[in-house]
């Protein structure tokens, strides 16, 4: 009896939203969750600025299928409850058509099941945890970029191709899920691809640590050939600065898979000869786009607006928007030119290929995006007061992404040293 009453009530609540789905709406509403406060706002703020610019540009050029796009932002920094309730409010009360969530992997994990229940298109636009689509079978969630496995694997491949003879490695990662997960992936792959490499120290200083002096003293005593740090934001800046102030950057090669997002802020603290990645093919001097007027115009406009060069979250949000636009356009075409239902848009996303600011990305059947990975070695160039990338390699995303229906931790165990040279790669030099 109770169940019937409840069912009727909820059915009534949903009825209102379902009835007019196929009429062309006045606007396509999206909700974007991003850190606007806290340390991770170094990613959220640029992404928000970029999203506003790209949406304005889209609307100036006919929006999506002639319908303008509007975006609302939610601060991930306001905490879990505020995020979840605000997410629901946007979907249930504001009738948002698509949600982009989120930067934090923890938040993506929280929101995935919620999006299924709310039956709303959810684009995981920045989070990196590889477990999302390995452990869940979501209909409504898609990821429009790579995940931690290809990101860390490409970092290792770059290291092994450019510095095959290194013997010792140490790690200094932030003590939270990403720091631990990324090291788990990297070290598992390292064991398969270069079993003789020796891990001499593992440090996990707490997230937001203001001081790495003690860690650096120990690293100086140990003198590892390579120091990996998947840290980001203020933590990475502080670590690299303190390392360079004390000469650690002269004796060990730093490998910084998220270094691209700190390049400009690090200025002269990051000398030449260290390895930097970008969580995808994200670089404001993207070697294939550097002569593309639209790309250059965007980078200039963004730098003009924010005072900083665009970093990877900007590319990620551009990909999410491109995927949304692509899916709607494909669904409209499939629907004989009529405005599609939400479900048709979701069907269109599977297998979709789209391009944001970088190379093309394809959504696989498990909803994971396949994205190429760019890494490079720092060089100092006249005219820039921060390090740029040279000897860049762009790894093909397909072979380094865990195959559908496999779990990263197991798949990594199947790799052999022959894998290193089997991954197709394009190389580029700095050219300006």
């Amino acid at each position, binding site marked *: 009896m109770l169940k019937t009453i409840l069912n009727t009530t909820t059915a009534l609540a949903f009825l209102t939203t379902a009835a007019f789905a196929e009429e062309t709406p006045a606007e396509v509403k999206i909700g974007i969750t991003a850190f606007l*406060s806290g340390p991770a*706002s170094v990613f959220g703020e640029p992404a928000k600025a970029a999203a506003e610019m790209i949406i304005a540009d889209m609307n100036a050029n006919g929006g999506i299928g002639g319908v303008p796009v509007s975006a609302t932002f939610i601060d991930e920094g306001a905490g879990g409850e505020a995020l979840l309730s605000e997410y629901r409010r946007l979907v249930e009360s504001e009738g948002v058509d698509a949600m982009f969530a989120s930067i934090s992997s923890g938040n993506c994990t929280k929101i995935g099941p919620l999006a299924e229940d709310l039956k709303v298109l959810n684009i995981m636009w920045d989070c990196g945890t590889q477990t999302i689509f390995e452990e869940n079978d979501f209909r409504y969630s898609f990821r429009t970029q790579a995940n931690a496995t290809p990101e860390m694997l490409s970092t290792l491949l770059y290291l092994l191709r450019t510095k095959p003879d290194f013997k010792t490695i140490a790690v200094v990662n932030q003590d939270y899920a990403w720091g631990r997960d990324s090291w788990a992936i990297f070290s598992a792959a390292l064991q398969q691809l270069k079993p003789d490499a020796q891990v001499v120290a593992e*440090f996990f200083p707490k997230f937001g640590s*203001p*001081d790495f*002096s003690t860690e650096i*003293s120990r690293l*100086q005593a140990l003198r590892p050939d390579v120091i990996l740090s998947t840290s980001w934001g203020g933590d990475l800046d502080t670590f690299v600065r303190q390392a360079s102030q004390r000469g*650690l950057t002269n004796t060990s090669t730093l490998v910084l898979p998220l270094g691209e997002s700190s390049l400009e802020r690090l200025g002269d603290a990051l000398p030449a000869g260290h390895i930097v990645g970008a969580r995808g093919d994200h670089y404001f001097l993207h070697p294939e786009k550097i002569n593309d007027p639209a790309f250059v115009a965007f980078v200039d406009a963004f730098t003009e607006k924010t005072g900083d060069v665009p970093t990877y979250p900007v590319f990620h949000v551009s990909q999410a928007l491109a995927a949304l636009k692509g899916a709607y356009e494909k669904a409209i075409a499939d629907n004989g030119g009529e405005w599609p239902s939400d479900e048709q848009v979701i069907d269109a996303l599977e297998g979709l290929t789209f391009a944001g600011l970088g190379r093309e990305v394809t959504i696989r059947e498990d909803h994971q995006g396949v994205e190429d990975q760019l890494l490079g070695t720092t060089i100092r160039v006249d005219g820039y007061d921060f390090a740029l990338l040279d000897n860049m390699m762009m790894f093909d995303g397909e072979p380094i992404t865990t195959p559908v229906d496999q779990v990263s931790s197991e798949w990594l165990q199947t790799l052999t040293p022959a894998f290193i040279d089997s991954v197709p790669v394009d190389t580029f030099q700095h050219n300006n």
Partner: protein
Amino acid sequence: MNVQLFALAIVDGVSYAALVFLVAVGLTLIFGVLRVLNVAHGSFYAIGAYTTASVGGAIFAAGFSPWLAFPLMIVAAVLVGTLIGGPIEKFLLSRIYHLEDVLQILVTFAVFLILEDFQRLVWGVQPLFEATALNQLGTVTVFGITYTAYQLIFLPVVAVLVLVGLRLGLRRTLTGRLITAVTEDREAAITIGIDAEKVYLITFIVGASLAALGGALASATTSVVPGMGADMIVLSFAVVATAGLGQIEGAAITALMIGLGRSFAVYVWPEMQVLVPYLIMFGVLLVRPQGLFGGIEARKI
């Protein structure tokens, strides 16, 4: 662990302790006189760091001498203490001395929340870094390990100077004696005609300036980021409670214990590093409930 690593751990611990002490001593000074546990203390630390890093960045970019970095730190600290700390005491805290402890703490918690957003509105969210002062002093090599002279020598020296200066200032100067008098016995001090309001204001400004100085000094070694104040405040609480409330020398020794404990943890058992301050605090308070150096307060009957 051999002798070399032992020595390195001590060196690392001391330079960290110096910074912690500077922040904690301001907190303990304020508590000693005003009897308010100031949660917003961490905000002064952060604002001191932001001010130094942003102003420093601007003046060095304009071509001024890099040696100005040092006087700038002091100027920034005093300005933050006076212009932000001063009004907070004068217009807000002065109204709440008659309230319960918990309300006083919550008022400072509210100030902390407000100042967090104030920092974001003024300085944005991108990490700032301004290491001119540190670079000016160069590096020193100990046991084959390179240290910056700034962290190895300068910070501990500043900490010792502040400690000695505070002690002498409180004993030898008139203002210092007035502060001591109010700390010892507020009612008696007011009865003999000491202007307690003024003493409160001055103490708060000095305490806030010390926190800001801690931030200014830290800005040369660390990224200035949103949220840096929240972390510092918890650590300072641990120092102040362990030392005994209002204990200046106690704060120095506790900061040293926590600094050394932390660096030894990195060498021996890195996973324990974050727990060290709290474990020390728990251990000390279990044995000495009033803190290492705290006197037993007479119970009010």
